[in-house]
């Protein structure tokens, strides 16, 4: 990422340049949807949350002091919005129930459901990482920027989170041997 370019975009947006805000929107929209999705577990709600994130960012961008931390600032708004939506019972709880989950119909859907449960059984910071990594193929650098942690920390946490998922799945009888993408 070109930091100068981004700080310039942020500064321009702070001065009322809509196209610059548009460029920031295009750049971070997907990552905000992913971040919201990690909390809401509902794609449509996550899209709604992302729309609200940018509405608030549009309103408050003048208050952002550290222009180089725009992505992390945006992520903070996103978490707040998602929590509000959860509180308002507008979103799925992040902990998926055992037998309360949607009725699975076959092995493939059972496997997918098991994987979803494994992901949403993670703690929030790990879940954010996993969802961002696999939602739209964000790089460790991009994740690092949005979550405001070092790329090394991203890598380490990803490994640990995946290990937990694999362990959860194995406990539920699902391993690489019997996983087949359909």
């Amino acid at each position, binding site marked *: 990422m070109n930091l100068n370019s981004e700080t310039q975009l942020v500064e321009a947006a702070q*001065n*009322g*340049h*809509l196209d610059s805000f*548009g460029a920031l*929107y*295009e750049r971070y*929209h*997907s990552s905000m949807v992913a971040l919201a999705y990690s909390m809401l577990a509902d*794609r*449509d709600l996550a*899209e709604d949350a*992302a*729309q*609200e994130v*940018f*509405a*608030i960012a*549009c*309103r408050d*961008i*003048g208050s952002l002091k550290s222009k180089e931390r725009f992505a992390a600032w945006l992520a903070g708004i996103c978490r707040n919005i998602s929590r*509000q939506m959860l509180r308002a019972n*507008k979103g*799925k*709880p992040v*902990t*998926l*129930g*055992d*037998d*309360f*989950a*949607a*009725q699975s*119909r076959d092995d493939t859907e059972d496997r*997918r459901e*098991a994987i*979803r449960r494994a*992901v949403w059984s993670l703690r929030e910071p790990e879940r954010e990482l*996993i*969802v961002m990594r*696999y*939602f*739209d*193929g964000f790089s460790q650098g991009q994740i690092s920027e949005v979550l405001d942690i070092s790329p090394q920390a991203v890598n380490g946490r990803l490994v640990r989170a*995946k*290990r937990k*998922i*694999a*362990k959860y*799945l*194995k*406990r*539920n*009888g*699902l391993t*690489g041997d019997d*996983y087949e*993408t359909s």
Partner: protein
Amino acid sequence: MKRPENDKWLDEALSEVIGAEKSEPNFEKWKQGHPQAVEMLTARAARGPSASKSPLSIRIMIMKSPITKLAAAAVIIVGVVLSISVFDKSIGTAYAIEQTIEANRGLRFIHLKYEPAGTGVEEVWAQFDDNGKLLHLRMNFPNTMDGPKDVVWQEGKAEVWFKAQKGIAVLREKNILAQLKMSYKSFDPKLLGEQLYHAQADEKKQIEIQESRSKNESITITWTRNGFRMVYKVDPETKLLQQFEKYELKDGEYKFLGLTKYLDYNQPVDPEIFVLNPPPDVIRVDQTTQEVGLAQDDLSDEEVVVKVARQFFEALIAEDYDKAGKLLQGIPGERIQQMFSDKKFLRIISIGSVAPHPNPRTQGLVVPCVVEIEKDGTISEWKLDQLGIREVYKQPGRWSIFSGIEVNE
């Protein structure tokens, strides 16, 4: 349990499950939906960074109310809605999904059934207060990983009747309500109405409405998305949802998955519906007042399973029935004493290797155990081939025995 050496399959699985759809930013559309925000930002060009934030603040505050949010969304998207060929204009006065949303506002009680039976929740009753807030909920699950299970919820407390285990767990934990609501969300006619309403405004979503041609014929709404198709039937007079069917696209055809039928709306409520009335031999374990099982701490799953098994048998040998009960789903000590009154536990002979439970849906592990007992004056081995142990229901990080023990009472 060894760590996965090659997790390529996991990468593929996660990409498939989480990354099934790509997010497509569309700033032009966002601008259309947020004219005030756009106006506030562009006003900065003239007024500088001290621009007032009050207009949008008011909008955000108002939007916190779901109903107001809906109304606000209606204003924003009305132009879009009008441009979509949602209504079959050849059929009389158009039905609008808003009418169903309006009809749902007066709901105080609903009763629904799901078919086919045995695939999850089968029957649901829900009661609401005058403001539409959920007061009572009952959901019956005839076939779960724990066997048949009935759940009632009210005032922040849930009771789960595990019928096969003859036990009721009393839970006061915020996630239980969240999970019940998540399940109920699949059937909630209010929410379904709102989802349809919002989906209608999205060009990417395919919604078709077929008006009824007579008072006896339902209005049909078909929503197709992501390989699934939902077919909703709406009463042409009351505008309430009568049923909805779900289909999944497989091999080029939409295959039937399930049917939800709304049996009663606003019928007089029998309060007994929301009360569990088990027979006397059902054990009630109040998990709001006691911890069940053993804390995992830093132990691996396999280690904690062995520890639970060992401590359970050691407690029985020491005739510490309270401790044994705590490790066996929190069953009261006196009941444990009754259950094992015909045996005297002498020593642990072996605790074997931990393996996944043969039924993966239990999410548990099993460990074979052999214990020496004295029964009717005779010493023998009591073999438990598959002592089932897993994390305690709603008490993460704590493990207890949940299956594999058969006793003569």
